[in-house]
């Protein structure tokens, strides 16, 4: 070994230490960055004794990362459902407030009972009709809320799809860099981190499954196996529907030409998209059916029959009516969107110049339907009939997902129970999924994240190495200096 060689080795030592310091400072800079992995500078000794930075690698744990992706997808699906159910809960609120359709049905029955106890009393008639009007309005506004929730879910799906496309495009750029870098042996650790982050973001929208091919080339599939990314990003398409009515059916989301929502063989199982679609096509639709069935039950309860000696006319709508009136909707079958259009008959509603006493006398549908033929002010048979109908079980459409044979109040209560149970189980699921996500993130961070203290002690070590190399250089310089001084 010569002095020159010594100088060269010391110089390579300086260069490597500088490189390692750069890696340490990258680590320190990323200490607060979730999903940033710890970078490691790999140093090799060269044949002549010097050292060189061979490569920079990162700490990774594929199994933990896959867990994180799965947990992210699952928790996002549940959060989307939970948010929508919370909005639907506005239609029920605290039972104490008696704001739910079920409570208002009860209040209407009570108002009619009051009316029956004083049938001559116009004020009681008015109060009964007002209770009916509040109920109709509550059903109308609940329908609006439900359809708003669906429209919002649809808009969220559109946003989610847009984000997914952007993320996939980003993924393509990063993946190409990674493939190039891997082939060139360049430092791709930051790109790998970026790809992990992008993948985590994608997994928020849709559940994913990945395989890694040669050269770190990643292929991404949905959890149902539809290609999202393979060399090129596949397009995700969705045609949004801007306005929702109860009969509107939303469009499915397509990836690579395959529908990934709905009941197809390649429907995805997790991710925000799943949650949003399940809200739009499932939870909200079922709840709307329940509201529609409450509305249909009300129309049935107040329907009037022909009172002629020989009845010839069909039953007709009474206090509550709908655009299909005066015909009564077919029994036991849901009429989609009925809750949104149920209204008070103008001939009874005092606000529309009607006569509330028709509630007692009948005849809302026409002269043939008058029950109180003598016009007696104390006539209660009609009111008692209505009260009987409130108390008797009636048939509801089984597609409303609750007990198909119930009193109208019981059906309303069961609807509230259905919604709250859905909320409760969604909340429990959200809590579980979120905890799982936190644990996965923590485990991954523990395994691959940066520890500031470790980096700082590493920095100390590097500082010493740098000092030693510098000292070596100055010593060799001194040695050469003394040699030169020897020349006279």
């Amino acid at each position: 070994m010569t002095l020159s060689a010594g100088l060269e080795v010391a110089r390579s030592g300086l260069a490597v230490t500088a490189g390692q310091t750069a890696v340490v400072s990258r680590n320190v800079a990323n200490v607060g960055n979730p999903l940033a992995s710890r970078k490691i500078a790999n140093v090799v000794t060269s044949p002549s004794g010097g050292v060189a930075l061979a490569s920079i690698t990162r700490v990774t744990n594929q199994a933990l990362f896959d867990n994180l992706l799965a947990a992210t997808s699952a928790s996002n699906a549940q959060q989307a459902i939970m948010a929508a159910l919370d909005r639907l809960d506005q239609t029920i609120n605290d039972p104490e407030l008696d704001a739910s359709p079920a409570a208002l049905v009860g209040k209407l029955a009570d108002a009619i009972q009051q009316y029956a106890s004083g049938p001559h009393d116009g004020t009681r008639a008015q109060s009964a009709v007002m209770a009916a009007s509040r109920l109709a309005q509550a059903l109308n506004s609940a329908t609006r809320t439900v359809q708003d929730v669906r429209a919002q879910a649809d808009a969220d799906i559109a946003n989610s799809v847009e984000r997914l496309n952007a993320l996939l495009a980003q993924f393509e750029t990063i993946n190409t860099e990674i493939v190039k870098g891997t082939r060139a042996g360049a430092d791709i650790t930051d790109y790998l981190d970026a790809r992990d982050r992008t993948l985590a973001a994608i997994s928020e929208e849709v559940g994913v499954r990945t395989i890694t091919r040669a050269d770190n080339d990643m292929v991404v599939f949905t959890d149902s196996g539809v290609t999202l990314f393979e060399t090129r990003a596949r397009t995700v398409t969705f045609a949004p529907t801007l306005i929702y009515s109860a009969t509107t059916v939303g469009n499915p989301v397509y990836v690579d030409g395959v529908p990934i929502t709905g009941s197809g063989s390649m429907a995805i199982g997790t991710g925000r998209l799943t949650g949003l679609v399940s809200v739009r096509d499932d939870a909200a639709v079922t709840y709307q059916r329940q509201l529609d069935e409450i509305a249909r039950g009300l129309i049935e309860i107040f329907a009037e029959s022909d009172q002629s000696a020989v009845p010839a006319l069909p039953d007709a709508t009474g206090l509550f009516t709908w655009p299909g009136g005066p015909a009564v909707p077919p029994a036991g079958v849901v009429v989609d969107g009925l809750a949104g259009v149920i209204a008070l008959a103008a001939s009874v509603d005092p606000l529309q110049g009607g006569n509330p006493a028709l509630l007692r006398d009948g005849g809302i549908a026409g002269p043939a339907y008058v029950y109180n033929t003598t016009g007696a002010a104390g006539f209660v048979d009609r009111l008692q009939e209505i009260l009987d109908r409130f108390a008797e079980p009636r048939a509801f459409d089984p597609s409303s997902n609750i007990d198909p044979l119930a009193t109208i109040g019981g059906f309303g209560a069961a609807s509230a129970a259905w919604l709250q149970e859905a909320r409760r189980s969604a909340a429990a699921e959200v809590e579980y999924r979120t905890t799982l996500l936190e644990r996965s993130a923590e485990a991954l961070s523990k395994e691959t994240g940066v520890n500031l203290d470790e980096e700082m002690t590493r920095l100390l070590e590097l500082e010493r190495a740098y000092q030693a190399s510098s000292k070596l250089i100055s010593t060799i310089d001194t040695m050469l200096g003394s040699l030169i001084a020897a020349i006279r």
Partner: protein
Amino acid sequence: MKTTFISTQAISESTRLSIAKLQLKLAGAQKEVVTGRLADVGLSLGYKTGETVSLRQEYERIRTMIDTNGVVENRLELTQAALQAIVNAAQDFVGDLLAARSSDSGPALVKRQAEMALSGLLDKLNTASNDAYLFAGINTDVRPVTDYFQVPTPASRQSVADAFFTQFGITQSDPAVVNITAANMQTFLDTTFAGLFDAAAWAANWSSASDQNVRSRISTFELVETSTNANEAAIRKLASAFTMVADLGTENLNQSAFYALVDTAAQRAGEAVQELSVLQGTLGTVQERVSIAKETMSVQVDIIASHINLLEAVDPAEASTRVSTLLTQLESAYALTARLHQLSVLNYL
């Protein structure tokens, strides 16, 4: 190579997350302490929400029923009082009739008494409560009977006058009534005059009331008649007894005809008193049922209220303990966070 088993991120994240969770729980627990009810009833009860919604419906319904039963009770009491007054008047009248039989000044006196009794009866029948006539059946907004002695002559009085004139060819005030024989009088009373008080004639000339009584729902499945009406046979009989003494020229009748009249009136009034008692008894039974229903329902209301409470309420002691536990936890989490953040190798470099 990685030499540590935890990252700085993981250390701070875990305390941060637990603080956030604790704060969320604290908000809920605070609300529970203040209100004594679950913070989010629907979320905590799940499918049991249906139960509280049903119970609250039931609660309101029974409260309404108790309320409306109050109205029914009030009406029944007023009706009973009126009926009792009518019965008393009828019994007094029978006594008066017996006294008049053995007194010379009887006919004139008893006629006046009968007139007053008749007015009294009609007045009682027109008793109204809360804008509704008690004896009108379901025709609650129409005065059941008209005053017999008002001017112009009402249909009731006219029909009596017409029947009398048709039978005897003279008016009641004609002194010639003295010539009416007891047998003739008896025949008139049993046939034509009685016909004036049968249901059809009564409805046509006397009463605007409906035969149909008001029915009320006194509990969920109990629908009962909670009124009587002016068309009851007892009322008609009593009215006929009062009318025959008051308006058949009683003061001018000969002795035997007077006796026939008075005897028939006494008999009719006696029958009426009996039938009225039956009517009173029926109404009394209804009253009894209403009060039993009321009692039952008050108990039900209490049970339901306690049931709702059971579902929705939280134990205040438990809730406040939870709040203080959470506060302690939160404080230690804060302390821990501060300590952890002070703990860094940077301080020693």
